[in-house]
Structures are given as structure tokens and as C-alpha cells.
């Protein structure tokens, strides 16, 4: 079945807390927070669900400015925020349960957010093995 189109609303970081409050007061459930690299910067997407319909909020992010945590509104967000902080190195301020980089144990810090992983050519990969 063709699923409905999804609308992603892009907002600024300063609007985030207010918008999330609005969602919370309307009885939405926090579904997930995801992070994707967009060129040199990152984007965070917050997904909410009410009556089986997903709504999305998107904010730009980078590794220097910290994002206000929404875990005071939705306590559930602390795992997603810790995960993004560990994998992408995007700082969050005021996470309700902050594991301070110990939630996901990685051999290199922030593997998804820094170009530490270089793609080897196929041939070199074989020699390496």
C-alpha cells in the first residue's frame, strides 16, 4: 500500500524546546531522534507519533555548538541523545541521564562524525587481510 507522504519541518535550534513542548502538550509520543551528515554539517531529526501518524522536526547541528536536550520534556530522549553524542560527537546540554560518552563503547571516538574511517581501495583491503 502506498504510505502517506512524510513532511519534515525544518526549524532553528532556538525554537526546538518550544516546538517539542507543543508536541508534548498535544499528546505526541517521541518515536526517535536520528542524525545524518549533510556535507560538513549534521542534521538532527526528531520524530513524533500521534494517532499512528509520524511528524518530523529537523534542526541543523554541528560538533561545536551544543544542542539543548529535550530529556526534560521527553525523558525517553536520553538514549538517543547519548547515542548521537557518542557516535557523532554532537554535544548536548542538560541530558537528564548523561552517560558522558560511556553509553556506546567505540574504539575510536565519534566514528560516524569524524573522517577517521577512510575507505580503502578494494586491492589494499585484500592485502590488509
Amino acid at each position, binding site marked *: 500500500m502506498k504510505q502517506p507522504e512524510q513532511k519534515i519541518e525544518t526549524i532553528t535550534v532556538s525554537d526546538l524546546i518550544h516546538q517539542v513542548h507543543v508536541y508534548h502538550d498535544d499528546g505526541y509520543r517521541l*518515536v*526517535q531522534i*536520528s542524525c545524518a551528515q549533510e556535507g560538513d554539517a549534521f542534521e538532527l531529526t526528531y520524530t513524533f507519533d500521534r494517532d*499512528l501518524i509520524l511528524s518530523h522536526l529537523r534542526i541543523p547541528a554541528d560538533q561545536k555548538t551544543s544542542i539543548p536536550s529535550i530529556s526534560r520534556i521527553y*525523558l525517553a530522549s536520553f538514549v538517543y541523545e547519548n547515542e548521537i553524542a557518542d557516535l557523532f560527537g554532537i554535544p548536548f546540554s542538560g541530558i537528564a541521564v548523561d552517560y558522558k560518552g560511556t*553509553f556506546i563503547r567505540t574504539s575510536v571516538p565519534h*566514528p560516524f562524525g569524524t573522517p577517521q574511517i577512510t575507505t580503502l581501495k578494494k586491492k589494499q583491503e585484500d592485502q590488509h587481510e
Partner: protein
Amino acid sequence: MSKQIIVPFGPQHPVLPEPIHLDLVLEDERVVEAIPSIGYVHRGLEKLVEKRDYKDYVFISERICGICSFIHGATYCQAVEQVMGLEIPRRAEFLRAIWSEYSRMHSHLLWLGCFADAMGYENLFMNCWKVREKILDVLERTTGGRVIQGVNRVGGVSRDMDAAEFRRIETEIPGLRADYTELTRIFDEDLTVQTRTKGVGMLSKDMAWELGAVGPVIRGSGHAVDARMTGYGAYDELDFKPVVRTEGDCHARCLVRAGELFTSLDLIENAIDRIPKGDILIPVKGNPSGEYYAQTEQPRGEVIHYVKANGKKNLVRHRVRTPTLANVPPLVHMLAGCELADVPVIVLTIDPCIGCMER
């Protein structure tokens, strides 16, 4: 007040099928706080999407998890199909629904067995897995794989079932239902199960919502949250009713899963009755461009596959929000205040799938 000590639980522990580490802060025998930490089975499958053709990646997305593999593959395909604006054949959607329900049953039976084992009830564990074997036989017969089915393709499924196969499945269903009735009776009435699970790991209705629980965890606390209600794939034509219990303890979560075994059988019967004739696979040309969040229901709860593509044959980003990750906040909440001896039972009731969680 007594002294606090920290007991490390995992990553290697007899009741844990997969590695998760919990630092349990104890006061005497009571857990004050649990601090989870993961990262032992991270395989970088999300990153691999940047190096593989989006059609070949279906096989990798199926291998995100060793239990709920079929639904991962189907959800990924669904996300890519939505991005490309494909309308796949109706028959393929029905077949996906049938296999999804079979893999749900096999996952729940596996979990019920592991749960019985965690309570120290090994006999029940063997019985659950004996029944599970019948499900795996059907999956192997129809798809070629016992656990990793490998029949999902972008644009449909690669294998069809004929009328004789449907008749055979229909004749097997009453036997399975009898097996489930017996298992459910034991999980519901047995004294061993009741003493280990009743009133343990309480999660109130409000807390479950606030902590973003999904799947049997939230349904055991009285909320009817089930992605199958959205009617993705063929589910809009099937008579689906979520199993909900209101107690919010480990026993309720266990019975939600046992109840879902019957729901799955009903859905399979339903789907066999209503499956239309036609193609099962449409040719897919071109590369996807756009993004989509596909939402489906796995045995463990709702899963979100996010796919972002820019018109090349490799996707830009694939992110999987697995049900276990969403169930970590409720787990941490339930562990605070419980007895040390109940920790294995509570950890298992969220059905942790760490392989999924870390991708």
C-alpha cells in the same frame, strides 16, 4: 543506610544471549541504579550502506538481527520503495505479511523459551523450542532459509507460494494452536512462572508512555501501540487487533507475547484467505532520491528504518531505530529498586536484541 557497591552485570552472563553491560549500583540486595553500556557487537552495518548497491543492501539489512531478520529486510525495502514511489504487487505485500507473522511467532517462541530458562525452568524452555522448530520448518520450506529468509527484494519478493503450500499451512495451523494453548496455560498458571514474574518489574501506564517504550513492553502496560495498526503493507486488509494487558509487570509482558502467537496465526489464516493472484516482483529501474521513515512492527516492537538517498546507487544514510534501543529507558527505570535476583528476569522481559541495537 548501608554501603553502596557496584556489581558488573554482563557483557558475558549466563542469561544474556547477547552482550550488554550493566553496572548495577547495589544497596544490600537492592538495585539502586543501573547504568547500561553497549558497543560490543557494533558491526557498522549502517555505514556499509555507503559502499553497497541499494538493491544488494537488502541482504545486509536482513542480517542486522538474527531473529527478526525478515522484518528488517521488509522494512528496508518498504522505505526504499516509498522513496522511489514504487507500488509493489499486492500479492508480494501479502506474502511479506505471512512471512513477517511467521518470523514473529518464531521470535516469540524463542523468547518464551529463553525466558523460561532465565527463571530456571529448563523443561519449558525445551518445549518452547520444540514448537519453534515447526515454524522454522515452514520458513525453510517456503523461503529456503530457516532464520535468514533472504526473499525480500526492492520491488517485491523473490519467491512465491502455490495453492498446495497454502493448504499445507492451513492444515498445520490447528496443531500449532493446540501447542500454543498448552504453552500459554503453563505460562499463565504455573506456580514457578507466577512467583518469578508477578509484580516484578512494574512499569506503570504513564511511565511506559513517558519513557517511550514500544512493543510488548508498552502493550503490557495498557497502551495499544502497535505499528501494524497503521496498516502498512497488507495489514490494512487483515483483521488485526493488538494484544493489550494492563498489569504492567513481567507476567503481563510474557502473556502479551504469548497472546501475539495466536494473533499471528489468525493473521496468517486471514492473509491466506484474502491473498490476490498476480505478480510478486516488479522490475526496478533507476536510483532512489529522497528520504523516508518506514515504520513497521517487529516482534520486539516498532522499528524505524530511515533511508536517505541522493540519486546515486549508494544510499547516503540508513538509520535503524530498533525497538531495543527504545526499550532501554524503561529497562533502566524498572531495574532501579528491584532485587538483584530479579535482574535477569527483568532484563529478558524487554527481549533485548543487542545486535539490532548496535547494528
